[in-house]
């Protein structure tokens, strides 16, 4: 299992567009990937659950990946939060 923290770099936070991209990205991996904000943890396969976290720009969230391809999944997640999110 790996876990990493990210600061959300987009102004609107994880709104519909980045959340949709995140759900799509997770579908490429077998690992179970979750997102945690504060006390609440939800799986990244549900757009509804991700949106219900209402993660805003500047807030910190953690991503937890567990499974055979967790390393490559985390790499993709890394790229998403560090590079793509700003443009979404």
């Amino acid at each position, binding site marked *: 299992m790996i876990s990493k923290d990210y*600061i959300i*770099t*987009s*102004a*609107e936070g994880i*709104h*519909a*567009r980045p*959340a*949709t991209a995140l*759900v*799509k990205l997770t579908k490429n991996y077998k690992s179970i990937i979750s997102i945690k904000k504060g006390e609440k943890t*939800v*799986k990244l*396969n*549900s*757009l*509804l*659950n991700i*949106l*219900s976290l*209402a993660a*805003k*720009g*500047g807030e910190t969230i953690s991503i937890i990946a567990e499974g055979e391809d967790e390393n490559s999944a985390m790499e993709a997640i890394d790229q998403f939060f560090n590079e793509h999110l*700003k*443009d979404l």
Partner: protein
Amino acid sequence: MTISGIGVSPGIAIGKARVIKKQAVVLTGILLLNDEEITIAIEKFDKAVAVSVIEVEMMMNNHDALQGSEGVEILEAHIELLGDPQIREDVVEKIQTERKNVNDAVIEVIQAAVEVFKSMDDDYMSARAADIEDIGNRIVKNLTPAIAIDQDYEAGTIIIAEDLAPSDTISMDIAKIAGFATQIGGKTSHAAIIAKSRGIPAVVGCGADLKSVQDGDMLILDGQSGSIIIDPDQETILKFEAKRDSWLKELSLLKSLKDTPAKTIDGTEIHLFANIADSAEMENALEFGAQGSGLFRTEFLFLGRNDFPSEEEQFEFYKAVALKAKGKPITVRTLDIGGDKQLAYFNFPEEQNPFLGYRAIRLCLDKKDIFITQLKAILRASEFGKLKIMFPMIATVNEIRAAKAILKEAMQTLTDQGTAFDKAIKIGIMIEIPSAAVIADLLAKEVDFFSIGTNDLTQYTLAVDRMNEKIKDLYDPFDPGVLRLIANVIEQRHKNHIEVGMCGELASDPRATFLLIGMGLTEFSMSASSIPVVKNKIIKASLTEARKVYEAVMQMDNSKDITNYLQEKTQ
């Protein structure tokens, strides 16, 4: 009769009303009898979801015009929501454990999710309730034989509805619609977003008054002021028709230019930035096609208060701007107070010549604590966007060295604290004092970029106080002396490999556009609303022609000849 609501998408629509009534989604209360019915109910749900996904996909494919716009993104989110594992899990549980029929199970699950989103303390998120309601309605509709939504309306129709779901607006034949009005909704509601992205005038949040509108009523809808006039007289119609025509003209100019690259006909790329003071202005600037901000005046945060803003407060302020720019560059100018900009909580010494006095970088170098607090806040915000730091009022090489030393100190403090910032942040100066323009070659070795501030440069070069009524005619940025200084600064771009921009008023003067391009300027920063006007000049310019203009101007010995010549050339 006039109804007022919130104008969310500007423009004037004049046309006949079409009132849309939606079929209510109702609970039946019927419970399932046995396991077989439960299995069938779940199958029915899955099938309705599959049909719904196909419907949405068809909507995406049929609307080529929506490619890349907000509409496609909304629909992509809908596809994900339709197949959302959490929604399915909840629906299946209601069917299995509570024996609810599939219609009721879907309605209840969607309703619960809608309530969660509506109660969120965030306008954007609470507006997402409409998306969830929309996909829920779609699934419910597909559980039972479809009822075709009547779409047979004539061109120029104004759509009246309680609210419009995203899929309603997307599935409509937008070309026939002149405007929208809804009873509920706000600036972030979907009807508002779609209307704005398609340039259709819209008024939302009209309340129950809107119910008095009947099918076929003649309406005037003003998406700017948010008013709707029912059965207007001929005179009013004529008045609004004229208003509509002028709006359409302006819109087509702005629209055609927003995404047009600012490139000369012979392919020289020019970058157009906006001068801003806060995050709202940054957002507005992007609407006008700005590629970032070439001058972010930070004084705004310091004015109209009782004490200096804290590092934290400044950080939040700069961060908000950085986030709004969505990765586009922002040149943050450090505090430029003194002169005509006084602070109530800072005791400025009485001065004979405040413009030649204790201000801007001079004050910052003297009051190091004020300066370092701001620098730390800007550096911290650089994690959230592409920020550059610009020092104002630099006259000598020693001043920029001193400013850089303090910046280095701020960076060291942050590094020691383990605070992240952009270590490769670019540093530049305003060129607004004649000495700086003259020694631009020396200054170029110290910094990454220059930004020419033509307002102060003109005033200092010609020794003219702009505020002095008696001599204000002498203030003239087209004076050959001022232009020679500007040309000298721009020349350093190639001679000393330094980025050169201009953020003074001359950058927004369409008469100067050819001349400045001819001098070799490629970065202009101005008020957002000037961008389309200047861009309109750039796309008609050629570098070869602009160079000739520059050469010709350099032969002239007074600003009157120069402005007359430029006026003629830019016609």
